[in-house]
């Protein structure tokens, strides 16, 4: 092996990037297409972005998706952090192995199964208690929390595992009660993990199509559901514009998560 980068490695890299990003770039390029036909170039225009803003259907769906994503991310972070703490700090309690398995199962379970089982749950709950009266915001949010929580748990738990446990012991040694230690020491130190967990849960919720489709009811369409139903009638240029906006939002989210994780590494003591 020599230090000069071989042309083979370079071409693999180029091919890989091309494979990943050419579709995205073409979506963005075509979102500025003046033509009504999505695949024929008709000159530069931003008219589809304007049209998008006047489309109440799209705006409603976007708003619903954002509301669901924010609620999901917040609850998933709270619950996931609690679970991570229990798994990382409470030693071996009865049912720990079972809990570990159950926590990670949403990560590997096919979405169709998760969606279907949640739908069945909501339908039978409605039959028994009359709740949920309609399926929409609340059912989709509950469904999203169930799987997003698993991701947060994994992130928080690995951060806790990397954290020096004697920090918490030192606080206790200095006269701090155990519950107070969580707020004084543990949460400030795992905050970066909680933030990246929140961002991940937010993105997952915003992206989800399959589970949302199962548990939503009439009149409640999230953005991915709306796009999917529109695309079935043929790709229109305003979808390209919408997709471009989503790409921009997701990219910002990824950059934010990267910045947070970089700070997290820096704040770790260097001994």
């Amino acid at each position, binding site marked *: 092996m020599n230090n000069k980068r071989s042309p083979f490695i370079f071409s693999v890299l180029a091919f890989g990037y091309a494979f990943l990003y050419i579709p995205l770039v073409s979506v963005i390029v075509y979102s500025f297409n003046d033509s009504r036909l999505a695949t024929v170039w008709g000159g530069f225009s931003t008219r589809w972005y304007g049209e998008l803003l006047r489309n109440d259907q799209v705006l409603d769906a976007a708003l619903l998706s954002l509301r669901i994503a924010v609620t999901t991310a917040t609850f998933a972070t709270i619950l996931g952090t609690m679970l991570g703490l229990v798994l990382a700090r409470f030693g071996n309690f009865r049912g720990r192995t079972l809990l570990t398995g159950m926590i990670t199962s949403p990560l590997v379970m096919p979405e169709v199964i998760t969606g279907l089982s949640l739908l069945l749950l909501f339908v039978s709950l409605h039959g028994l208690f009359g709740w949920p009266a309609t399926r929409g915001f609340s059912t989709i949010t509950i469904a999203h929390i169930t799987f997003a929580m698993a991701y947060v748990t994994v992130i928080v738990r690995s951060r806790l595992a990397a954290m020096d446990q004697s920090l918490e012991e030192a606080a206790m040694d*200095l*006269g701090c009660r155990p519950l107070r230690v969580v707020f004084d020491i543990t949460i400030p130190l795992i905050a970066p993990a909680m933030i990246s967990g929140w961002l991940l849960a937010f993105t997952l919720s915003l992206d989800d199509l399959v589970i949302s489709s199962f548990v939503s009811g009439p009149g409640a369409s999230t953005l991915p559901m709306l796009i999917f139903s529109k695309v079935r009638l043929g790709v229109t240029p305003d979808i390209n514009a919408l997709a471009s906006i989503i790409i921009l939002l997701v990219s910002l989210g990824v950059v934010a998560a990267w910045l947070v994780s970089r700070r997290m590494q820096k704040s770790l003591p260097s*001994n």
Partner: protein
Amino acid sequence: MGNQTATNKQLTEQPWLDSTAQPFIVIENVSKHFGDFVAVNNVNLNIYKGELFSILGASGCGKTTLLRMLAGFETPTSGRILIDGIDVTDVPPYWRPVNMMFQSYAIFPHMTVFENVAYGLRKEGVQPAEIEKRVADMLELVQLGGYGKRKPTQLSGGERQRVALARALVKRPKVLLLDEPLAALDKKLREHTQFELMNIQDELGITFVVVTHDQEEAMILSSRIAVMKQGGFIQVGMPKEVYEYPGSRYVADFIGTVNLLEAKIESKDGDQIVAAAPEMANHVRAYTDLQLEVGDSVCIAIRPEKIYISQNEPDNDDDDRVAGVIEDFGYFGNLSLYRVRLESGRIIQVSAQNRRRSVERFLEWDDKVFLSWRVRSAVVLTA
């Protein structure tokens, strides 16, 4: 040892010799089991007020578990622990009059130096003005005056160690526990910090309990050392006692270097014995208090620095001696270490001060040499 009558001064400095002195920390029949594993096995120990007591042992000997039981992070499976006359066996760490300096220092990374040191006082509900004063005084004591606003990431290893020390001391604990206090520091800094730690202990009069695997650290710091092995103490004593009068092969070998010779007692006259050591070609003499009979197998221990090495045969018959050939040697600047092969093939380690300044070697490989030592330097071991 204990056979001379102790004076009053000795009794204040060495309260463990005084049978009427009240111990400050009492560890009574303490055991700790983790499942089937016995980490600490029925340990008894008295530590007196103002001592700097070291628990010394190889890793996995149970010393850290014992320290964690003193801090309250582990509860003994059986037995009890008293501090200043109060049974603290079931008292949680946040109510114990004890503070600990952790091996990793455990400085809170999200707080400044001042906030770190003030943390314990805030939890105690001390008035802000007093906190300000006590933290400043304590930072001054550990020579970190003016460091209050710094973040832990801006500190060197030695400074972090002193923050950890200040944070543990500022609460004025009855006992300070130190887990491998100097292990993370480099050699030069460690030597400096050792003396600093002793001065601070002297100034505050707080009882220190140190856990360490570093025998040198324990020797320099401590008033007394407890050598621990497989969950139990095998010898407790002042550093000099443990070094010069080891009670067993393990202690002799663990603390410092030693030449151990298997021997059989051939004759006995009062406390002097003459033993045949097959590896030595001739007899070895030694003095011992142990009740031994002719024919008993013993082990004779001789420290490398107690042996004189010379090219001429010494004519002093009061000393024991043996001839050998230099197999190997190492030059350390202040001293040289020789490995001398006896006729039996046995290697004996000898260390000698390099008193003369010279680049020429005084002894070379394959030089024929004589080793001699005072009969009183030989230690008789049975365990």
